[in-house]
């Protein structure tokens, strides 16, 4: 009957997690180092040998939308693997290489780094809820100053590669709700520097809402 209807039941169906060879595209926005940026994502599930849990990898691109400018962009190669699963409890995470570019009137900065993330919580076919922790660190940043900075602030500013210029920690909640082929998600929490200091002038928080479509 199930075969006749063409419905495939996958015992591993879980909210927010792709099965092997499943793909998804998504869109998100919120407060994510910008107010209402646009984030586009693509992910694909993979099998890794005999490893019993799925692995996914993909790409996400985020741009601030106010005064839209592709010189301000974040590109991240996303990875996620489940490390532990006991019934509905699971721990999963990944390490994402990330590139962040920013162009301002005083300088342009291009940073390369890694984003470490971990989720612990409960996941079933419809819901995934739990706590996420994310730590990103920018190993190298290329900074090039403009005349506006050198003329009006510091003419001796040194352009070039700088090491370990930034680190950020996020601790918050992730909720994912699956409806057919759609995963609706919300992630929110505190966002601070690597030394757990508040941000300058802007909220030390993040809140991202989005939807992924599986195919």
């Amino acid at each position, binding site marked *: 009957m199930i075969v006749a209807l063409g419905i495939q039941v996958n015992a591993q169906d879980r909210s927010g997690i792709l099965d092997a060879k499943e793909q998804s595209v998504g869109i998100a926005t919120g407060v994510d180092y*910008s107010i209402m940026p646009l984030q586009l994502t693509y992910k694909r599930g993979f099998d890794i040998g005999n490893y019993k849990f799925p692995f996914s990898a993909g790409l996400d691109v985020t741009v601030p939308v*106010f005064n839209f400018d592709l010189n301000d962009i974040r590109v991240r190669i996303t990875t996620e693997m489940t490390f532990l699963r006991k019934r509905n409890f699971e721990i999963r995470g990944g390490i994402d290489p990330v590139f962040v570019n920013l162009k301002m*009137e005083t*300088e342009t*900065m291009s940073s390369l780094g890694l984003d470490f993330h971990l989720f612990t919580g409960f996941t079933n076919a419809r819901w995934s809820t739990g706590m996420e922790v994310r730590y990103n660190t920018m190993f190298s940043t290329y900074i090039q100053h403009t005349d506006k900075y050198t003329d009006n602030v510091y003419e001796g500013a040194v352009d070039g590669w700088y090491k370990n210029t930034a680190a950020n920690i996020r601790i918050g909640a992730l909720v994912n709700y699956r409806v057919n082929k759609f995963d609706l998600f919300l992630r929110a929490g505190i966002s601070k520097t690597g030394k757990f200091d508040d941000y300058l002038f802007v909220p030390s928080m993040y809140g991202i809402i989005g939807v992924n479509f599986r195919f």
Partner: protein
Amino acid sequence: MDFPYSAIVHFCRLKNLIIKIMTKKSKLLMMVLSISLIITSCGKDPLEPNNLVPATVDQDLSIPAIEVNGTRLHLETFGDSTKPVMIFLHGGPGTGDYRAFGRMLDEYDGYKLTDEYYIIMYDQRGAGLSRRYGDMNDAYHYAVPELTLANYLADLEGIVERYSPDKKIILFGHSWGGMHAIQYVNEHPEKVAGVILSEPGSFNAKIENQLTLSIASTDLFGEATNDLYWNHQNISPDDYQMIDYSYMNGFYNGLGPDYYHFSKTDILPVFRFGAIASVNDLGSDGMTEDGTYTFDFTTNLDKFTTKVLFINGDLNEVLTPEYQEQNRAYLPNSEIKIIKGVGHDLIWIKPGEHVKLIKEYLDEVL
């Protein structure tokens, strides 16, 4: 099996399992981490002075400085030390330094201030190239212990004692520097020969608490705010160099308020922003933790009977000539001169007009 032997066997099995897992699954991870370690060992140190921001006087002892009141301040003198002393007090706190006064040392119509006066310019503690203090957590609560009105006053008292212990001084103050000048006049009216205030801020909390506009506007949907937010991914404001650098990025990329009407083409320069001093504002003896001002520099102003000169632009939407009437009400004798077509950066945009007005004023009162 005997315990020691079984332990060895289990250890070997675990070790082999770990090696097997690492060999199969972690090659990519190890490669990524290795590359990361290589990358992190390359590149300049952003915390090193003189890379992104200039060094402060405690980081570079060759910068002209003075030791006073337990701190080290960036200070320069100009002219003949036998002439009457004129001390320049910059705005802020924190967001200005004496670089903004640079043009006022130039010659205008055959006259420069150093012809008649011994000019002293210094960066207040926590600002410009002077020593830094505190951290942002304290600053957000206006509670950095070293950055208080009492310390700002004591620093100025020390400078006066050093350069003009026996003769009266002249004070020139811009914005917060004008408030700071009046703070000194309120404490030592007998030591002051003349006061020139260029768009000073409020003389007391009663006036200041009525102001509804703040020094920094944070339009959450504006490009400047979003750039500053985005920038936290590139630069973490975790220490003095990076905090000052990030802070300056915010202001020089449009975070400052429009109602002060700073020039967008002839930009008011700084040596270096003092972010913590700026956020700390007037400090724990000038305001409460919730940001309500409590300071009062007017308790003794009636003792200062020498005329005080106010200089104001006509574009500033906050510190207007009408606003200055509230300050002037505390002084027995004052006069206001308006310079047209200029905002709060009037000391930089109209230095010649300032020098002319200062000369006329001091020729009259001295």
